[in-house]
């Protein structure tokens, strides 16, 4: 039994890596534009399906799909920005509805192009078991956990050191002041969407490489990313990683101890608990929601 729980913890941590990437993209855009991109999960799913196409048509490893996914998903993210930036009245409500509409468009486009079938990778290299003591993991899970950590490190460096990263943080903390300091807010917001697109593209390919995908998955991914940001509190990369790992572990434990059908309820339970007990998130400083 303890072996099973240990295994669930391990799988949960591995799953947390790509969850964190999805949540960081959502949080980054929310930070700069105060807009929750409800189509974010669909962007991730789009990358996953590009991974499928590259594997099934070209016969390459899904990992090789990342450049293609980057191009397509960043273009799609730029389109989302194009729509959201045009909204002038009731920005908060209307941007939600508009990105919800984009989510509907993407879900149905995916349905049309790739049909409703459930897909998963056929790469033996990615699915091969890697044994570490009593713990089993798929090689794909380990590879993409490493990729996730590297990306998070790169994101941290970018936000802390690069000009655009600092511009993103400046716009997030005070848009008007940032504009007065000569930072173009529009372009900075576009950059935050593009970076979110990069994160979504990698997370999507990871999703396809280690699990099953279907067109209806997008909404659940957005909800998961949101639960993580509630758990973590917006603003810190390690916080998001911890929140994501917590969600992954909660899901894996539910699958092990109860039933796989209740997997999504685990995240929800965690979310409600935090909502009731710690409204500022686990690692959040004092901040307002919305």
């Amino acid at each position, binding site marked *: 039994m303890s072996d099973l729980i240990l295994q669930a913890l391990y799988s949960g941590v591995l799953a947390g890596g790509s969850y964190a990437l999805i949540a960081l993209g959502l949080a980054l855009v929310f930070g700069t534009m105060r807009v929750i991109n409800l189509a974010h999960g669909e962007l991730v799913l789009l990358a996953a399906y590009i991974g499928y196409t590259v594997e099934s048509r070209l016969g390459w490893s899904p990992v090789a799909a990342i450049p293609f996914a980057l191009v397509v998903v960043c273009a799609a993210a730029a389109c989302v920005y194009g729509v959201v930036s045009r909204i002038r009245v009731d920005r908060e409500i209307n941007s*939600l509805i508009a990105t919800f509409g984009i989510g509907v468009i993407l879900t149905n486009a995916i349905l049309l192009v790739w049909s409703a079938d459930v897909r998963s990778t056929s790469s033996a290299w990615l699915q091969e078991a890697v044994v570490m003591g009593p713990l089993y993991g798929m090689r794909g899970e380990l590879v993409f956990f490493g990729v996730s950590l590297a990306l998070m490190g790169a994101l941290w460096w970018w936000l802390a050191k690069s000009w655009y990263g600092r511009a993103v943080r400046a716009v997030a903390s005070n848009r008007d002041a940032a504009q007065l300091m000569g930072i173009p807010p529009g372009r900075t917001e576009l950059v935050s969407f593009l970076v979110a697109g990069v994160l979504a593209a990698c997370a999507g390919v990871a999703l396809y490489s280690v699990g099953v995908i279907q067109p209806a998955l997008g*909404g659940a991914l957005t909800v998961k990313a949101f639960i993580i940001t509630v758990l973590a509190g917006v603003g810190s990369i390690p916080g998001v990683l911890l929140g994501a790992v917590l969600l992954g572990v909660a899901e894996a434990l539910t699958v092990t101890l109860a039933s796989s059908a209740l997997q999504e309820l685990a995240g929800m339970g965690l979310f409600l608990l935090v909502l009731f007990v710690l409204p500022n998130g686990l690692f959040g400083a004092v901040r307002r929601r919305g």
Partner: protein
Amino acid sequence: MRRAYFPALLLAAYAGVPLVLGGNAYVMSLIDAALVIGGIALAWALLGNLGGMVSFGHSAFVGVGGYASALLTAKAGLPVPAGLLLGGVGAVLAAIVMLPVLRLRGPYFALAILAYAHIFRILATEWTAVTGGAAGVSGVPPLPVIAGIDFGGKTGAYFVILTIVCVFAWIYARVSASHYGLALRAMHDSEDATQVLGVNSTLLKAAMLLLSAFMTGVVGAFNAHYIGFLEPDYAFAGLWVTLPIVAAIFGGYRTIAGPLLGAVVVYLLDQLVFKTLISSGHQLILGALLVAMIVFSPRGLLPLLTRGRKSDAGT
């Protein structure tokens, strides 16, 4: 609104539509379904307009309302009209569970309620002892025959859903005109200022959520009896959110007539035009319509059309 038109409009809806179209079962079924969407769109718009909250979780209320009524009538033997009301009560109970999300604002609220909708669908699928699980509930009793009129038929059901929608529109108008409506509109401008004046904003928002849930639940219950079958994927389908939102935005969600007219136009367009263009992914066009409306005319088409006439209408 121009009150003089109301009696004529009601007469046309109650007598004109059944007389002219009543013989065509297909057209009547389209209109029934459009009114179901219209009822949900109205409830959604009430929450959005008066409560200032965007919900992506109304499919939860549709599903819970449908399941509550279907199970209470099919298994406990309650009469169907009572089931419709209890469907609304069931949705209110679901909304009470959601009340903690009122602590959240804007996007956080919208996503939290979306998450709730996921929970309810999982519950309906997994709680097999009560709901019958993924196989669904069959043999949901149809709407009854009263005084020789078969309310289970396409035309009879039309009268039922039309009455439900009209009553809801009337309630909406009364709430909007009351001093609660005034307080809610004031909250839309500044919630803090309204609280300072002694308005219990959380209580008012909760009331709007419960009212909207009740309306949606009744419509969901009606639909369950009208269709005669329920399964989790249908009862909690994303379509119950997408179509009403598109309808409400299309018609103008800050008006009362907008969501209803929007529902009729959008649903008929969807079924008669979009579905023939793209059979499996026709919601794609709905999504595009939604985005286009938000970008180019976020207040909807109805205010756009009536804007020119506002001066001579004397409002």
